């Protein structure tokens, strides 16, 4: 929830935001109306990918950056389907 408050305020002050969240917290994105969210199927504490898995981490970061440019309305959620594979 902490980041949700930050996202909402930044957005209302004119700074576009994108948030990467694990699935366990995806309901928070919906409840709080977080502007743009990429949801990963990763365990808590590992939002971008397993340690040492540069490829997955890069894919998640790139998906988030792309969502900044493609989202057209607040509350946009992109769910990534790849499972967590260390």
């Amino acid at each position, binding site marked *: 929830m*902490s*980041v949700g408050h930050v996202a909402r305020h930044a957005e209302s002050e004119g*700074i576009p935001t994108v948030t990467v969240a694990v*699935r366990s917290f995806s309901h928070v994105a919906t409840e709080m109306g977080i502007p743009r969210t990429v949801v990963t199927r990763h365990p808590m504490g*590992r939002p971008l990918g397993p340690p040492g898995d540069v490829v997955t981490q890069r894919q998640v*970061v790139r998906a988030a*950056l792309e969502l900044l440019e493609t989202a057209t*309305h607040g509350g946009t959620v992109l769910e990534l389907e790849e499972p967590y594979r260390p």
Partner: protein
Amino acid sequence: MTSDPAETSDPAETSDPAETFEDFKNSFAYGSRNDLSFKFLKGLSSDEAAEFLRLVLLEVGELFDGGSPEALIDLAYEWQVRAYTPGPDKKRPFTYEDRPFTPFSQPLSSSTVGLVTSSGHYDASDDPTPFGVAHMTQEQAIERIDDFLRSAPELTAIRRDGDVSSLRVRHPGYDIRSVSRDPGVAFPWSHLLEAEEKGIIGRLADEMYSFVGACAQGRIRREAPRWVERWKEAGIDVLLLVPV
């Protein structure tokens, strides 16, 4: 030579005879068996937790015969999601109807990107010393989870041209083992520098930011305007936010 557990299992000597299964499952959340990857057990009913443990043992049994560790990972993940997902009737705080949205109107390739995480990262030379405690360990932080949850978050800045070997992490709310092994798990410093090199983003801002997300929610709402002002003054055009 190992002994048969049944021969030595005197409850009066080896365990608390009053401990219930409810106590047991809850002990993984800041209790005697604290494990932040499995604190979600507290969010399950006793029947659900028992079923989860049964399935874990079933999968471990499969591993004996060459089964997939991925099935065990998926099982833990699915039950973690189940434990954290609120029921449809549960009234949740900070539920909003509005959807603040600022259209992104300039190319990403010419934008300054800011990074903000709630992972509790800081530079070793700039330890926020929670509650005035110097060199607070992760274990000490976990012991003070209630204090963190009652307090305002402190924003730490990490310079983009800093030394990654000076990056530290401390957070009482999640298992920091993964992110300690590789900051890229939750603090994508190298990935944003790479995106800059490839021209995907204009540039990574001079400073990146982190705080401990386990904090008083009312206090962070009051802090956020100050933080956003700071980021605007730093010339940040867009923010990548990473909660843990």
